[in-house]
Structure formats: structure tokens, C-alpha cells
């Protein structure tokens, strides 16, 4: 390769990464701003963090979001892994096309579609069966699970494609029934993918604003919904402070995960 290419490539890459991180950097920076402005720097202050931590609404919303995210991602990992297994290991079966379509469609569907359709379903169900009574944690969670399942399926399928199919056949050949094969052979090999899927689902659920807006009810505002309503009225450095806290938490989480994965020598297939 000529010498010219890498230089051009590096420039473009640096520009791309800068583009990604500039807004984040500015958010973090202005969370320490002395004045209300998020564009003009006046001085260093921690006042916005103080105000944030006294804001009960924000804290409640944050806890609710975390709870929903935890439940939704766990459920999504279970359902998504089953779908990935079926699509990846069961060969051709009747209904495979349907399952494949259903488990990849939410991946590309716009949020508003998922949100409004979920809400309409809940309304209709309420009319027909009396459940769900109004919208709340359960409806948001269900909608989030549906959103996240397809992401989990993609991640787990990709991992399953990399593992040797004959490992599972060998286990069956040696006398292990299919469930045992899953727990003794498959799971030990794909657990990083399950974890990655869980983290992905957690993030998606935590971050979602549109679906939650449609499927939440009075008293069940998630954090993003709260932020959206605040932001529409105008920017305030309190939000910056919140953003910075989230960013720091994520950085710690990612570093921890990276360190853990590095310690666990990944088994070769």
C-alpha cells in the first residue's frame, strides 16, 4: 500500500471519532458551568450536581428505568437465545421463515411503530380481558422486551455461527439429551454472547424514549421520558450533570467488563 492512503484514512478516522465525541465532551464540560448557559463557559461549579441529587422526580425516574431495563433485558436474553438456537441449529422447520422474519423485523422498525402498536394492543387487551389495567411498569417492560429480543438474537446467532456445530452433535452422540447438551456444551461456549446481549438490551431499554412514552402511564415516567419533557422546555445544566453521571457510570461499566473479559481466556472453538 502506498504511503498516501494511511494518511488520508487516519485523517478521516480522526475526524469521525472527533465528531462522535465532541458533543459528549461539551455536555460533560458544561455540566460544571457556573451559569445556566450550556454554550458559554463562565466558571467551575458543582451546583448542578447538587440540584440534581435533590430532585426526587429524577431519582424516582432513574430507579424505575433501571428496574425496567433489568427485567426487560433478562427476559429478552432468554427469549432471544431460544430464537437464536432455533434459527441457528434446527435446520429447516415449518415456520422457520416466519420466526426469522419476526425476530429480525423489530431490528429495523422505527420506534414510533413499535410504541404505538404496543399501546394499541394494550388498550384492546384491556377492553377484551381487563388486563392490563392502565399502563405502567408491566406494559413498558413487555414493549421493551419485544424491542430487545431481536438484538439479542442477532448477537447470539453470530456467536453460534462461530462455534463448531459438531460439538453439540458429538455431545448427543455420546448420550446427552438435548437440554443437557445446551447446558453442558453450548452455554459454556456462548455465554459471552449472552452477556453482551444482556448489556445491549439493558442499554436499549434504558435509553428508549419513544416506546416508553407510548406505553407508560401516570406515575410511571422513565428517565428518558422525564428528560424529554424537560429538554423540550429548554436546556438546563442539570441535564448535563445527569448526562455526565451516566457517561461516567457507563465508562466504569465498560472498563470493568473489558477487564473481566481480558482475565477470562476466551475458549477457542
Amino acid at each position, binding site marked *: 500500500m502506498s504511503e498516501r492512503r494511511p494518511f488520508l484514512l487516519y485523517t478521516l478516522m480522526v475526524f469521525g471519532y472527533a465528531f462522535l465525541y465532541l458533543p459528549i465532551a461539551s455536555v460533560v464540560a458544561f455540566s460544571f458551568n457556573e451559569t445556566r448557559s450550556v454554550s458559554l463557559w463562565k466558571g467551575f461549579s458543582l451546583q448542578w450536581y447538587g440540584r440534581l441529587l435533590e430532585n426526587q422526580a429524577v431519582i424516582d425516574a432513574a430507579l424505575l428505568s433501571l428496574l425496567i431495563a433489568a427485567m426487560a433485558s433478562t427476559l429478552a436474553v432468554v427469549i432471544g437465545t431460544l430464537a437464536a438456537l432455533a434459527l441457528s441449529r434446527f435446520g429447516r422447520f415449518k415456520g422457520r421463515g416466519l420466526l426469522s422474519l419476526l425476530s429480525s423485523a423489530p431490528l429495523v422498525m422505527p420506534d414510533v411503530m413499535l410504541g404505538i402498536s404496543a399501546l394499541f394492543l394494550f388498550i384492546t387487551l384491556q377492553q377484551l380481558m381487563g388486563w392490563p389495567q392502565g399502563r405502567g411498569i408491566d406494559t413498558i417492560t413487555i414493549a421493551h422486551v419485544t424491542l430487545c429480543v431481536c438484538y439479542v438474537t442477532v448477537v447470539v446467532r453470530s456467536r453460534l455461527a462461530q462455534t*463448531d456445530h*459438531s*460439538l453439540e*452433535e*458429538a*455431545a*448427543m*452422540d*455420546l*448420550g*446427552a*439429551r438435548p437440554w*443437557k447438551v445446551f447446558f*453442558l*456444551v453450548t452455554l*459454556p*461456549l456462548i455465554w459471552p454472547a449472552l452477556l453482551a446481549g444482556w448489556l445491549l438490551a439493558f442499554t436499549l431499554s434504558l435509553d428508549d424514549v419513544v416506546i416508553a412514552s407510548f406505553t407508560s402511564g401516570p406515575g410511571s415516567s422513565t428517565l428518558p421520558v422525564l428528560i424529554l419533557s424537560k429538554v423540550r422546555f429548554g436546556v438546563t445544566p442539570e441535564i448535563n450533570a445527569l448526562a455526565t453521571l451516566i457517561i461516567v457510570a457507563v465508562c466504569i461499566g465498560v472498563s470493568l467488563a473489558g477487564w473481566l473479559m481480558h482475565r477470562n481466556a476466551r*475458549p*477457542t*472453538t
Partner: protein
Amino acid sequence: MSTPARRQAQVDPWQDPNAEPILRIEGVTKTFGKTYAVDDVSLDIFRGEFFALLGGSGCGKSTLLRILGGFEVPDKGRVLIDGTDMTHVPPYERPVNMMFQSYALFPHMTVEQNIAFGLKQDKRPASEIGDRVAAMLDLVKMGQLGRRKPDQLSGGQRQRVALARALAKEPKLLLLDEPLGALDKKLREHTQFELVNIQERTGTTFVMVTHDQEEAMTMSTRVAVMDAGRIVQVSTPSNLYEYPSSKFVAEFIGAVNMLRGTVVEQQDERVLVHCHDFAFDAWARYAEPLPVGTDVHVAVRPEKIDVAETEPSGMDNVVRGRVVEIAYLGDVSIYHVQTDDGFVLRVQETHAARSADPHYNWSDVLYLVWHARDAIVLTA
């Protein structure tokens, strides 16, 4: 490669009308969409055999093996193992074990745990498992490496572990999927001997799938040649080589000169075939009546052809030609000799006496000679 055990067998089990096969495949057919992967295959395999399914890629041998292992269910036909119909029995309930082409060793388990896996599924007591694992490690000469993980082993070592794991449960049938494919040439030869040895010591019936005809010929008691989902011929290696039943088998196994022609005369137990490929009439031995005018192929193995520098007399088949190619292999030389009409015949000469002088050279005129009894007439 005949071994003491085999030489002792008075009557081969497949020739004994009273022998019960340990594996009977009856009319098995398997389609994938519109393609027939296995097309109406029937086969009997007897206890103690080292049986090979031989064929090119896509011939259905691997599918048939998987059906035997329980990983595919045939659309038609039955599979009987030791008399019991096991066609629909899942792999984990069959007394059959498989050695996979990729070895399929569990990467997160040690060698010992791999070998013990099948025994644990049977819920045998721990002490029994321990003994059996040790015995298996001994059998494949991996005694010191029990605690290692698969990624710490070489290719040959992994293969031995795979074999030990598959034999641990003393299966009635051991299936081997291209067992030597991943090994280099020297290791392959060594492993061929070892596999046959182990098979004899354990007395297990082996069914092997391979595309390498040398492998099949060297190791097996019998070989089934497959093409397009069907079995073309089943016989001992020597029978397949010297008495192929079709042009396909003759060309698939070993090198051969294939002449197309028409029968012009029949005498006692020989026929005279007028060749279409070059101006020649070949005498070939054929015991059964063959009407004049039948189109046949005459196959002659290169090593059956003798070479003379002057025209001999009183021989069944003499062809004059010119050397156009020489391949010197040390123990033998292979000559491509072109007739006046342009057809090229392949001849193999063994260097029985030690000499560095080339026997024949390019453009040498030679006479190729062979007996009628060494020519194979193929009507299929």
C-alpha cells in the same frame, strides 16, 4: 495390509449365508429438497469389519454416515443395528459413536473430561469412569496428557483424543468421518496403521467415510464405492481393484487405461474388441457370452503392461508407441506412450534392479504388451 486376525478367518462373514450383520441398511433414501442425497441404498456390514464408504464429494457418503449416527432421519428405508430397528432413534440413545471430521473436542473441558463425558451420561460410578478413561488414554498412547485442554494439543493428538472418546463407551459401531483428512502425509500413514491396530484390539466394527481411495484400500476389509447417492460396488479392496464392475469404479480406484470399443469376435472365454480410440483390436478375457456388436470398455492397469524395445511375437496385445512423458517416482516410473494415432497409454515399470540410468527416454519407440487375462471388460 493383512493382519494375523484377518488371515485366520476361514470364511469372510459377508460370504457366509448364515452370518447376521451387525448393521443392516435397507432401502434407505434421503432427499434434501429435490436432490437425492442417498438413493435407495442397501448394505450389510458384519461384526469386526473395517468398512469404508468411498466416493467423491456429493456422493452421499457423509449423509449416509449421519443417518447411521442418528443425525438425519431417512425419508424411506430402515437402519437395523444388531437386529433392532433404530431408524428413528436419536443419537443419544444409539449404541453408536462417531469420530467427527473436525474432532469436535469440547474446548472448555480437559482431555480426561472429554473422554469421560459419554460415560458420565450413562451415570456410571466415578471409579469405573476413572478406570475406563485411563484405559482409553493408554490405548491411544496419550497417558501423560490427560489434564491438557484441546487447544494445547497438536492435530494428531486431538485426533487420538477424539478416537478415545468415541471408543470409551464400547459402542457396537464406530463411525469415522474422514478421519485422516486433516493430517499430513507422514502422520497419515502412521495413523492408518494405528487405527487398524486399535480396531483389531477392541474388536469394534468401524464404518469409515473417505474420498481418498488409497486410504480406503489400505485400511478396510471391504469398501463400498458410492456415486450420486447410490452404491456402485461393494467388495474387498483387491476385488474392487482387479474386478471392478463398472467404468466408474475402474477409473475411481487406481490408475487405468480405458479403451472404448465394440466386440467383433468371441472365442472360448475371450473377446476381441475393436477399439474406437486408435487402430487396435484388443483381446480380453471375459467368461460370459457377449454378443458381437456390443459396445464395451476395456480397462488395463498400467502395471499390467509390459514394455519391450523390439516387437514381441505370440502375445495377445501388442501396441507400438513413442514415449511422450516420463514421471520418475523412485520406486517406479510412469511412462505416457503415444500410439501412431495419437492415443496415449499409461505404463508403470518397477525399478527392480538398482540403477540410476533411465530405462527409456523421450521419443523412444516402445512396444507395450499385455495378456488378455489382465484386461478387464466392462459393460457398465
